[in-house]
């Protein structure tokens, strides 16, 4: 009488013999499934494997479907089934890293090393800091101290799944964009430390100065939101001169986070109480961009410095005075803006309200009273412009226009009566 133990051992061994082929087949099926981007349930792989193995075993005389062979059969099938399932999942995993698109030429890259893993955050971005001295580039002028300090303070947040070469390229791009550098070279070590060498901007302000103009840096309070290139009026010593702002004071100034962040640096230049303005074009080593603080971001903005291009003949007026007033003119030709600001000049207002009976009455009754410019019924998504007063109904949203005082009384009365949520 053959012991159970022996039968099981024989069963396992038979399982190995007849199960290997289906297992290898399962690996190939798994790889194929993954490469074709589809998915197959594991059962669909295991069951055929079992069937094939059983058929093979019976045909080869290794197993007979008798009660006596049941332990052997079960052991064998267990081995076959397990190895088929395992093979399938290994096949899928193997194929998942294989490049799919052979038409695209794949290049090798060198990634950051394991040591840099600590700097990788939850969203897969790595933070890179400059290390060591910011160097000068051969053949170029050396960096002014302020620019060197700015570069040393920079930090960069980049995806961790890029090779070192590409990370260097992106950092160079960001620095060039932010600081207008003439040239920059970044070298990244696998730990994620960047060595930067750079050259300051060529000619800074001077190339932006139009013919017949000169750039003058003046001291004045800077209207917040002023942007490079805006035409302004400069008033100094009772004369008003037209000019163009050269130094950028807007959203790409130092303290906006998008391109290059400054680590914990304080914002504006301190307010100094004296000093004449700098005249003519600043030297090539002094980039214009860091001249002006952006007081829209800074709580303690005092007198700032603005570099403007003015007709050369008028430049002496600005040179002679200590401080000036910079005034920004309107340059919004959009008709709707002009229309509604004109209405405001005439003491008119527009309000968004929900109509009630009183309002509808006053709109219908007087031709010189409030008028409805647009209306939207509860069911509609679209606004109807210039509706017929006869069509108005309470409960509809409306844009009411009219004299400020009258509108105020009417609207606030109705708002107080029916607290409704108004949505555009």
């Amino acid at each position, binding site marked *: 009488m053959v012991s159970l133990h*022996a039968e099981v*051992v*024989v069963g396992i061994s*038979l399982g190995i*013999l007849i199960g290997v*082929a289906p*297992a290898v087949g399962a690996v190939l099926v798994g790889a194929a499934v993954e490469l074709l981007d589809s998915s197959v349930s594991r059962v669909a792989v295991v069951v055929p494997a079992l069937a094939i193995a059983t058929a093979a075993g019976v045909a080869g005389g290794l197993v007979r479907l008798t009660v006596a062979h049941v332990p052997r059969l079960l052991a064998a099938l267990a081995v076959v089934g397990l190895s088929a399932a395992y093979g399938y999942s290994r096949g899928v995993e*193997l194929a998942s*890293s294989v490049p799919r*698109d052979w038409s695209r030429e*794949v*290049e*090798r890259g060198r990634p950051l090393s*394991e040591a*840099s893993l600590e700097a*990788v955050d939850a969203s897969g971005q790595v933070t890179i800091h400059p290390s060591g001295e910011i160097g000068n580039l051969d053949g170029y002028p050396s960096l002014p101290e302020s620019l060197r300090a700015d570069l040393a303070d920079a930090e960069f947040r980049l995806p*961790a*799944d*890029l*090779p070192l070469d590409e990370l260097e390229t992106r950092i160079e791009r*960001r620095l060039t964009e932010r600081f207008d550098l003439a040239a920059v070279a970044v070298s990244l070590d696998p730990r994620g430390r960047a060595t930067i060498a750079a050259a300051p901007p060529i000619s800074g302000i001077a*190339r*932006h100065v*139009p*013919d017949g103009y000169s750039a003058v840096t003046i001291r*004045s*309070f800077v*209207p*917040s*939101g002023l942007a490079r*290139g805006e*035409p302004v009026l400069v*008033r100094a010593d009772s004369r008003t001169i037209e000019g163009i702002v050269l130094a950028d004071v807007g959203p790409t100034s130092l303290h906006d986070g998008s391109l290059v962040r400054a680590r914990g640096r304080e914002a504006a230049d301190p307010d100094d109480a004296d000093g004449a303005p700098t005249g003519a074009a600043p030297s090539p080593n002094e980039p214009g961009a860091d001249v002006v603080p952006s*007081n829209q971001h800074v*709580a303690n903005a*005092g007198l700032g410095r603005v570099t403007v291009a003015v007709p050369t003949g008028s430049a002496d007026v600005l040179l002679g005075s200590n401080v000036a*007033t*910079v005034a*920004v003119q*309107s*340059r*919004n030709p*959009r*008709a709707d*803006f*002009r229309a509604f*600001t004109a*209405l*405001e000049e*005439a*003491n*008119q*207002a*527009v309000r968004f309200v929900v109509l009630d009976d009183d309002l509808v009455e006053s709109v219908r009754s007087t031709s010189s009273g409030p*008028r409805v410019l647009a209306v939207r019924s509860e069911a509609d998504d679209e606004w109807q*412009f*210039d509706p017929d007063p006869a069509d108005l109904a309470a409960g509809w949203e409306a844009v009411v*226009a009219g004299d*400020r005082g009258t509108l105020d009384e009417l609207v606030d009365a109705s708002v107080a009566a029916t607290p409704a949520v108004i949505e*555009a």
Partner: protein
Amino acid sequence: MSPLVALQSVDVEWARVAALQLLGLGLAGGVAATVLAVLYRRTTARAVPAGVAPFIGFATVGCWLLGDALIRGSLVGATGLTDEATATYVLAAAAVGAVAGTGGGRLGDRVAADVYGIDRIVATGVHADRLRDARLVVAVDLPGTVEQADGYGPVSPAVERSLTDATFRVPSSLSGDALAARLEERISADYDVDHVQVILDESDGVDAIAVGRNRRGLGLEIPPEKVAIAVRSDSAAEASTGDPVALWSDGAEGPVLVARGRLHSCSSDVATVVVPKEALEDVSPRERYRLVTPADVPTDRGRMLALVRSAPETTVALEITSGGPLVGEFAGWLPGIVLAVRRGDSVLAYPADNVTLEPGDVAFCLGHPDEFAAHDGVRDVDAPADLDRTDDAEVDDATVPVEATD
């Protein structure tokens, strides 16, 4: 019979043959795993996944045994396949294969990493996987023309030059939407643009890109005939953007009203206010002004502008020129809602239908573009018409006459 008992019953010769065969099988399994590990590193720059190497060793051995069994009908000597001794041999062979596979896999992996210059990353986890993604990159070329995105202003010429025909390298595992998203993220993070859209073709090459920048500048927010200036002031703590303000200075005989305007923004000691152009002469940077905020009635101008811009309706500004078709016509004849007529320094709000249009007037009408297109007077008028215009005048680099020479 237990295997041990079975073993004792076979002779030494059998055992010797079995041992030699096991050695050979082990070698075969090891070599197969080594080869696979090397090929895998070569293709994917990664190590074979865990468990694959022993499985390969095991499978190699198994296939060999199967082949042997089919050809000869027995594995060691003449012992039958269902004999316990054979079964023990098979189990031992499988174990040897798995162990040899593990060893061979490791060997192959290290050799390949050395030969192909790959720095092994041992850590596991999502972040380590991201680092590995960097080993295989593809170059993506940007097209030769960069379009300007609808509804945005142009980007600087330097940015446009840099993006044209640029080549970006991205992990090869990215494709389709993920690839487009990565390119967009890169362009918006590395360049001074406010909007970017990348369109890919079927083979994941870049078909088109469009970039744009928001209009910038204070001038865009200032009504005509007014200017924005910054003055030293005590900020009214409660004052907010849009509040009317009156600027008072301390004169020799008491406070003097200098100008009236609206507050644009303020910080602790500087306020940016929008005042009439003439007030420029009365304001001095050496003075400190007090801001007084009178009562005001709110207006939903911003919301109205947003509504008009999002609706198909549009606003047009019609300049009435002498000799033009609109001179002498009634305001009521104009299409749409006549919001206002600016005549010289004054504004006629919602003019009555019988108001006659004079040369030099500017009439603002709000209506549907179809109405305007169909109306003879509007269609023929040579106005700086904003019928289809969505752009503001662009200041930036373009208006500075001297080209930047990079």
